[in-house]
C-alpha cells in the first residue's frame, strides 16, 4: 500500500470515528486527507472500493490478522489470547480504530455497500482465531472436544461487545479485560458437556 493510500485510509478512519459513516462523503474525506477527490477515485475507484479497503485497514490496525509485537515462537494459545486482548487497550489509535469499527458495524445494517465487506472482515478475523485454536488443540493446550469455530465466533463477538461497552463508558477497561480473560478460559478449558436428552455437544 502506497503512502498516499495509507494517508487517505487513515483519514477515512478518523472521519468515521468522528462523524459516522454518513460523514464519509468524498469531499469531506478529500479535505480531511488534504488530497483531491480525483486522487481518491484513482486509488479506490468508487465508494464501494473505498469502504472495502477502509474495512481491511481497520481490521489490520486492530491487530486482528497479525500483530508484529507478538514474537514468532509464541505458542498458539498465548498468541490468540494476545490477539483478542489487543483491542482492549487505551491508546488513541485503538480507541479511534474501534470506534470506527463500531460505526461500520452499525451502518452495515442498512447500507448494502457495507454488508459484504463487514461480513468478509469479520469472517477473516474469526477464521484466524479459529485457526489458532485448532493449532492449540493440536499442541494439547486446548482440549480436543472444543470446537474451534464456535469458540472463535463467540470470543470475537464478545471482544466487539466488551469493546463497545468500554468505549461507551458503561464499563471500565479493567473490567472488560478481566471478563475477556475469564471468557477465554471458560471457552478453552471447559469440561466436556455431559450429553443429555436435551442435545449433544456444543457447536
Amino acid at each position: 500500500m502506497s503512502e498516499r493510500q495509507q494517508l487517505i485510509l487513515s483519514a477515512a478512519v478518523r472521519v468515521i470515528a468522528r462523524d459516522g459513516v454518513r460523514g464519509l462523503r468524498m469531499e469531506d474525506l478529500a479535505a480531511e486527507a488534504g488530497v483531491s477527490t480525483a486522487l481518491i477515485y484513482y486509488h479506490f475507484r468508487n465508494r464501494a472500493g473505498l469502504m472495502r479497503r477502509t474495512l481491511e485497514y481497520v481490521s489490520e490496525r486492530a491487530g486482528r490478522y497479525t500483530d508484529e509485537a507478538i514474537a514468532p515462537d509464541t505458542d498458539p494459545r498465548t498468541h490468540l489470547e494476545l490477539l483478542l486482548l489487543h483491542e482492549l487497550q487505551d491508546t488513541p489509535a485503538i480507541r479511534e480504530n474501534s470506534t470506527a469499527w463500531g460505526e461500520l458495524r452499525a451502518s452495515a445494517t442498512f447500507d448494502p455497500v457495507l454488508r459484504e465487506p463487514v461480513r468478509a472482515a469479520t469472517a477473516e478475523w474469526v477464521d484466524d482465531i479459529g485457526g489458532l485454536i485448532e493449532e492449540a488443540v493440536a499442541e494439547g493446550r486446548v482440549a480436543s472436544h472444543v470446537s474451534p469455530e464456535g469458540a472463535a465466533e463467540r470470543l470475537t463477538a464478545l471482544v466487539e461487545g466488551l469493546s463497545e461497552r468500554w468505549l461507551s463508558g458503561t464499563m471500565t477497561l479493567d473490567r472488560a479485560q478481566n471478563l475477556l480473560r475469564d471468557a477465554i478460559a471458560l471457552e478453552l478449558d471447559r469440561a466436556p458437556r455431559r450429553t443429555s436428552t436435551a442435545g449433544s455437544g456444543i457447536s
Partner: protein
Amino acid sequence: MILEAAVRLVGREGLGGLRTGPLAAEAGLSPGWIPRLFEDRASFVRQLVEVVHDRAVAYTGEADAITADPRARLELLLLLELQETPEVRETSATWARLRASAATDLALRNPLRRATQDWNRVLCIAIRRGTSWRLPRTRRSG
C-alpha cells in the same frame, strides 16, 4: 410518536441523522413541531435510550408468558433478543447506533450505562433462579 420516529430514523441513519427536517418527515409532521424537543437535547437522547430499552424489555419479557420453568425462562430472556421481526430488528439496530455513538457523544453515556445495568440486574436474578433449580433438594426426615 416523535420518539418512535426518532427510533426508526436513528436506526437507519445514526444519531447524526437526527435533524429537524428528516425527523419531521419520518414522523409525518410539520417541522414546526420539532424544535421544542431539541431545546433539551440531553433529555431527548435519554428518552430515546429509554424507549429502546423499554421495547427490548417488553419483547424479551414475553418469556414469562411462554414458560414458568426458571432455566427455560433464562434462556428465552436471552434468545428473544434475536428474532427476525421488524420490531426486534429496528430496536436492535437503534441500540447498536446509540452504543456506537456514545464513544463520542457524552450525553448518551449515563442513559446507556443505566439501561445496561438494568439489563444485567434482571439477567443476574434470572441466572440465580435458573441455575439453583438444578440443585438437588434435600429433605429432612423425622
